[in-house]
């Protein structure tokens, strides 16, 4: 019983952050059709901005106000300059997808290199809310709890934004059928740039939360990108709620396997990933 509580609650506590990263990738990949290999780099940048501000006396959670909008802007401008041009030049979606994948690779190299030049590669950490809280008789990290609460709040806020607002509805429509969305008067290039920007912002926010909980390095991005790709596949391409739920599921699975055999935790992600692709490529929330 203790074990189950530990696995489920512990999994949920990691899952929140996974959800946030994956929702971001889902927007970039599911809607804007950019398989953004550099996604984790935005996360890393968010984490290091937090670290840097923390060293200068700014409360890490306050960074959310700075980091999110800043990375949104970066993502938005990147899409408008690089990816829009790739999209308009590509004769079909297939070419657009593969070319934007390559461009994302370039982006990955660029961001990573700049980050290494600025911050080096030594692992960094700072202490924030580093004490434990007892839930159902088990101890949990207080900072994880706070991070998960924020992740869920950000996820829920974004969900409401998608459900309730005009732009949000346009994003969902563009995810289903960009051409018809265009017929409705939606400026597709703008909406896709928006999605890319939101994706980057979410990665950045996840980075802020990760820096609160875990040590950070400038080379940690790719690992999180891979996790996000697994979750997005798990949840169904382009399904934002799917990614949200998928993140928690993967968190629980990962924690469970870690209890049994930590060496196989990452392998278990890939096993889920390739089995899912074979059996149900549309993901758990896809139709």
């Amino acid at each position, binding site marked *: 019983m203790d074990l189950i509580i*530990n*696995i489920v609650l*512990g999994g949920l*506590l*990691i899952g929140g952050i996974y959800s946030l990263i994956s929702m971001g990738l889902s927007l970039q990949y599911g809607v804007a059709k950019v398989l953004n290999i550099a996604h984790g780099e935005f996360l890393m940048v968010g984490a290091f901005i937090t670290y840097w501000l923390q060293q200068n006396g700014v409360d890490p959670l306050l960074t959310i106000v700075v980091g999110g909008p800043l990375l949104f802007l970066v993502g938005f401008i990147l899409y408008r300059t690089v990816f829009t041009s790739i999209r308009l030049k590509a004769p079909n979606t297939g070419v657009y997808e593969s070319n934007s994948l390559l461009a994302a690779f370039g982006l990955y190299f660029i961001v990573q*290199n700049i980050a*290494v030049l600025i911050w*080096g*590669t*030594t*692992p*960094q*950490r700072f*202490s924030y809310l*580093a*004490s*434990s809280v007892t839930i159902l008789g*088990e*101890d*949990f*990290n*207080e*900072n*994880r709890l706070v991070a998960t609460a924020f992740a869920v709040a950000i996820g829920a806020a974004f969900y409401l934004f998608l459900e309730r607002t005009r732009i949000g509805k346009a994003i969902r429509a563009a995810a289903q059928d960009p051409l018809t969305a265009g017929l409705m008067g939606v400026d597709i290039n703008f909406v896709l740039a928006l999605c890319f920007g939101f994706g980057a912002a979410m990665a950045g926010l996840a980075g802020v939360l990760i820096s609160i909980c*875990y*040590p950070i*390095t400038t*080379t940690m991005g790719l*690992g999180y990108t891979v996790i996000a790709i697994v979750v997005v596949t798990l949840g169904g391409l382009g399904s934002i709620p799917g990614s949200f739920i998928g993140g928690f599921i993967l968190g629980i699975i*990962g*924690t469970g396997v*870690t*209890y049994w*055999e*930590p*060496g196989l*935790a*990452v392998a278990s992600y890939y096993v889920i990933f390739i089995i899912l692709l074979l059996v149900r490529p549309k993901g758990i929330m896809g139709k």
Partner: protein
Amino acid sequence: MWNKILKYSIPLVICLVLVLTTVFASGCGGGGTEKNEILIGASRDITGPMAGFQDFGFAAVYNMWIDEVNAAGGIDVGGKKLPVRIIEYDDGSDPAVVTRNLEKLITEDKVDFLFGPTGTASLFAAAPIASKYNKIIICGEGGATTLIPKLPSMPYVFSVLNFSDHFQIPVFADICNEVGAKSAYIMYMSDLHGAEYNLTAQSEFTLKGITVLGTKSIPPTITDMDPIVKEAKASGADIFCSFSYPPQNILFMSTALALDYSPKMVLLGPGGNFQFFPLMFGDALQGVMAEGAWNAKSSPEAGAFAAKLEATVGLGNMDWWGAIVYYAALQHFAQAIEKAGTLENKAVRDVIATETFETVIGPMWWDCGPDHAGGGLLPQVCYAGQIGQWQNGIFEVIDPGDKRTAAPIYPKPPWPTP
């Protein structure tokens, strides 16, 4: 006219390219015949995941050493003082690239000697290449017991750092017996480094009456250590061993602090013995141990070296594990070249393998197996210490015997309240 030119342009262009390649390539291979410097090559992790070592590991030490040597006019080779120059290539900590870089350094840049790459896997990739071309390589960070049986066939490889059964863990077990720690929980990285430490620890602990209550391997990609820390806490073991690298050791410390897991004894792997650890964790580090140790109190020479190194790299980049032996190996290396009076690798190697020279750690020599025929390891007596413990911000050597600079604290105090 145009038609013809266009038609023949393809073969023309190709022939041109081929000729140019040959000319260019042979041009590249050249170089002066007159030796006026000692050229050393190194493939280093400048951009990869282990690039941090560039600031406080072997690179920090050899850069300081080169500056010193050159300030003194160079190394005397057969009556002529030659300055030392190093060529470093980036390998991004990919052993495949290490191989390629070393080949380029040896065959194109025609370096005289090699310095080792960062990390055990890269070192393993480098050693056979150096042997293949008969180039002396002085290795810094990394090493593992697996290398020992290979060394007889790699006479040009000199591995400086001490590793698992290569004296650290047996000493640690003795310390445990001394203070009365009875049971252990082991977490180890699922790579060569972790696996070897784990195996040695399992047998040493059994031998010396310490019960192992739990063992978990972790992947290098681990991001969440809560389950392991909780399990270790539940096991109630006196000793917690983390046989892993700086990122995992930092993660363990953060997690243990947050979950209030404070065993009587904590032994960390690489990272625990670097100065950035106390900068990161402050008072919490009181009583935490790590493998491989020296400090300014080890000897007067060590004190002078510590001051010199700190002035060069800064306090935050001090390495209380390898720095002093790297430096000693370089001092030994320089004296060997001077004694051999040539840059010819075979001659220099024979001197290195057989001679004892005075260094910062006292008299130093290499253990190269029977007849001095193989690659070299440092004998145990040469090291300044095997196990260290943080006491009031100083990494004290707590080995039993005359290397000790302070008595071990046991049990370590609980974590300070945040």
